[in-house]
């Protein structure tokens, strides 16, 4: 992949360019997979952060704040996804989203779907 550097921005915003995206591998654990309800929960949480947040499944990259995009991943139980966040609150975002997924979208257990 070609990386385009913007020397000007690194002068104006020292630190911005050196901050690498935070990535974490996620495994979908809930029985139903990443269907509409979990996708909505994921988006709702992701929207609380300012960072760019994306999910990748086998090279397919989607924006984490868009339910329709998340549903295109068709991520069933056991699916590995890479969560990538970049920005001032990237670390907090990744931590919170990982917790949601690793907990199997806890609230989902109570629904009747």
């Amino acid at each position: 992949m070609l990386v385009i550097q913007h020397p000007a921005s690194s002068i104006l915003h020292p630190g911005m360019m050196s901050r690498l995206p935070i990535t974490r591998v996620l495994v979908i654990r809930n029985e139903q997979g990443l269907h509409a309800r979990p996708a909505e929960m994921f988006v709702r949480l992701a929207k609380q952060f300012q960072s760019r947040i994306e999910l990748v499944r086998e090279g397919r990259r989607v924006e984490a704040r868009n339910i329709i995009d998340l549903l295109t991943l068709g991520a069933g139980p056991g699916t590995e996804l890479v969560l990538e966040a970049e920005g001032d609150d990237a670390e907090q975002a990744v931590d919170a989203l990982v917790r949601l997924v690793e907990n199997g979208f806890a609230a989902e257990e109570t629904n009747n779907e």
Partner: protein
Amino acid sequence: MKFSDFICQDAIRTHLEADEKEAAIRSMTTSLLEAGRIQQKDFESIVEAILKREELGSTGIGRGVAVPHTKHPSIEKLVGTVAISDEGVNFDSLDGEKVHLLFLLISPPDRPGDHLRALENISRQLRDDTFCRFLKQSKSPHDVSQLLDEADSNQFGS
């Protein structure tokens, strides 16, 4: 999974008259009843289950699209239908917009994977603006069904 694997062609409706969520869901479920895909004795319980799911959070997922759905023990194989609304249905969508494209899905309780793959297929096609626009402009169930066939044969973006 393709549209033809789960969309019941005889239940596709255009010019949906309902302008509220419950009426739209009833109308779409009725079309599945009329097409012989569900039985009269299960009708109310299916409608109630779909409405109960909506209480957890609207399935109006944005872009003028809703995917009301439920599992139901009377169903042996995933079945769904499409309705197009000209005026838009007030669906408490997550983005606050009215919905024009509705995909209703009923799945057997033990096949969550099929439901997920149907959602995957629907959402992938919906990312394509041309597909969305053509679908919204469909004047007859035949138009819709032709469009879904074209989508099935990859004539729109991924």
